């Protein structure tokens, strides 16, 4: 008869060593992530503002979360945030891939010169990017000067001054800043594709498009997954670019969840509702990007 194995931790054997080594990190993560998260969630269940303390009379339960789903501005913010995120990621991927492929095809001297230049926007703070583009979108700015050369004006593309194009304008600004990141990552992915695959494709008589769609794109799947996750989390919490560029207007057409949460906390002094908005944003992020990521990892482990 087999004896049941007993789980014993022995200091002598060094069983506790991994735990001890991880303890400082765990403590830091717990105190700077878990504690504030729990505190924030607690705040969302009470009616708390600056100068108002948590008390039993201020307990609201899940009222702030219920209020969120009946709040037209909040729902508009959800729509804008998701639209911004999808538009931004799609553009980043398409433009980034095209540029990366282009930079690999041009002569080495040209690509070595262009690559550092195109990465410059990545080094600029998003707030500065927003403020810079505010001048670009100004009727006296460079955009309308260029449009003027082809006979177009502010009436044709009102930019940040119209509810119909304000969000798109912020997405374009995001593309300008984040596409270089995609170029760098996709370039690394492209260089990792074995040359033999292209050689085989050439022997089989595959054209450029067939090669791109049958070899390049499938080989870049892992790279795209990483970009999708990083950009997804980054764009769903977008604040700085929109805040600097439009402030959420006109007519709330570009308001994001983060901007709405900020205004509730610091303009309305409603910390609780602001926290509820932030937690809902977190839940949306998890639903859109977290679950696919977990599924992707599980599938990978299954394959492994």
């Amino acid at each position, binding site marked *: 008869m087999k004896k049941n194995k007993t789980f014993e931790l022995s200091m002598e054997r060094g069983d506790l060593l991994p735990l001890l080594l991880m303890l400082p990190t765990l403590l830091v993560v717990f105190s700077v992530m878990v504690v504030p998260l729990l505190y924030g969630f607690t705040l969302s269940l009470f009616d708390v503002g600056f100068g108002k303390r948590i008390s039993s009379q201020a307990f609201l339960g899940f009222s702030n979360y219920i209020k969120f789903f009946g709040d037209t*501005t909040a729902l508009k913010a959800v729509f804008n945030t998701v639209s911004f995120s999808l538009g931004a990621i799609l553009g980043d991927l398409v433009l980034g891939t095209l540029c990366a492929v282009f930079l690999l095809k041009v002569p080495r001297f040209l690509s070595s010169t262009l690559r550092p230049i195109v990465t410059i926007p990545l080094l600029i703070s998003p707030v500065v990017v927003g403020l810079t583009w505010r001048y670009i979108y100004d*009727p006296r700015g460079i955009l309308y000067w260029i449009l003027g050369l082809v006979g177009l004006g502010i009436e044709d593309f009102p930019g940040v*001054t119209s*509810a119909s194009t304000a969000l798109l304008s912020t997405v374009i600004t995001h593309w300008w800043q984040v596409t270089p990141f995609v170029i760098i990552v996709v370039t690394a992915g492209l260089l990792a594709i074995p040359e033999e695959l292209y050689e085989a494709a050439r022997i089989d008589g595959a054209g450029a498009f067939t090669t791109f769609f049958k070899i390049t794109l499938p080989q870049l799947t892992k790279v795209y997954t990483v970009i999708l996750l990083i950009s997804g989390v980054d764009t769903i919490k977008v604040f700085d670019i929109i805040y600097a560029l*439009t402030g959420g207007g*006109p007519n709330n057409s570009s308001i994001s969840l983060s901007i709405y949460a900020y205004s509730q906390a610091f303009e*309305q002094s409603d910390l609780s509702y602001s926290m509820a908005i932030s937690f809902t944003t977190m839940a949306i992020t998890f639903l859109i990007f977290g679950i696919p990521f977990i599924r992707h990892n599980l599938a990978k482990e299954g394959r492994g």
Partner: protein
Amino acid sequence: MKRTTKAVLFILAMAVFATSLGYAQPKTNLLVSVWAGPHADLQKRVVAEYKKDQITIDDVDYGNLKPKQLTSFQAAMGSGNYDVVWVNSQWMKEYTDAGYLLPLDDFIKSAGIDMGIYAKGLLDGCIFNGKTYGFPTFAQTLIIAYDSEAFAKEGLKAPTNAEELVAVAKHFKQKGSGIALPARQGTAAVTIFSQLLFSDGGDYFDKNGKFDITSKEAVYAATIYDQLVQYAVPGVLAWHHDQTAEAVRMKNAPIGIIMSGLANQNADPDRSLITKTVKYAPLAGKSGRAAATNSFWVWAVAKNAKNPKAAFDFAAWMAGPVAEKKQTLADQQVSAINSLTKDPEILAKAPFLPVVMEQLANGKIDPPLASFAKFKAALVVSLSEIATTDAKPAEVLAKLQQSMAGVDFTK
């Protein structure tokens, strides 16, 4: 003298010196929070003359000023928190209700300061529950700035009421320019609306104190705002105060509704093309009467200041006649000290001052209520809707009135 005697005398002298050092009043390091901008640069120059304590100015852009002050109020005393705060008058009620500011009455009494030197309408905005929480300063209001040369060329006169203002804007729009105004979704648009509303004797509340944003004065103010946006230079829907003032200064717009705090830049030859031709007019309502939404700043002492007396002394000095006159002369700031607004030396430097004072004299302060902040946030969006869509102002205001049905305007 013997060597021993010399040594004893030397030791005694050193002891006396050391004792005197010990008794000397140590300087307090005061951290002061102000709104960043040209006025803050000037404040730093003026503060350099304050020798009593060590002052460090932390100037922060408007959007981040209140969040940073609120965070500082929550901090423990002496943990790098603000001692003196420059507070927007609109935030005073919230700050005093939360107990973030120190009542200054005892300090004022013992220092013998005559608070009667300050404009009553502004000083009232510093008093809550009978206690004085600060010194008013840096009053601001929206005024009309125009290029008299452009007006003369078109044979136009300065607008004296809202309808004339719309007519002038329309005239220039037809000529290819238009009026400049801060119509970006934000509080600047609310200030225009409020000033037009107050100018015609309107208010957010009816005679019975009931909230009413659908009054005929309110609809009129919203309609004028809508028309002004229609006859504005392109791009105003993305402009705040700075861009508006710049457009007027750089002759991109022959007329504009600008914040008085930025009017001094019109006389700066490095920044302005209208130094010799700029003139000012009140932003009047239908009747020609002009009233401001009284907006000003307050020098106040944080409750968690490490040395409240030192903090008070500094706040009182900064808001006192000497420092205020220096700032007014240097930067044409509108002081809350009555006598300064009649000072000929100041009037020569700030030609817009009579217009500002006329509006401030008729002005009102927005109700300092938490519920009003909620309404104001909604009004910001409603005015943006009026400016950017074909929606009728009366309908938008009716919708706004309906959305405020559940708001308790007594809190």
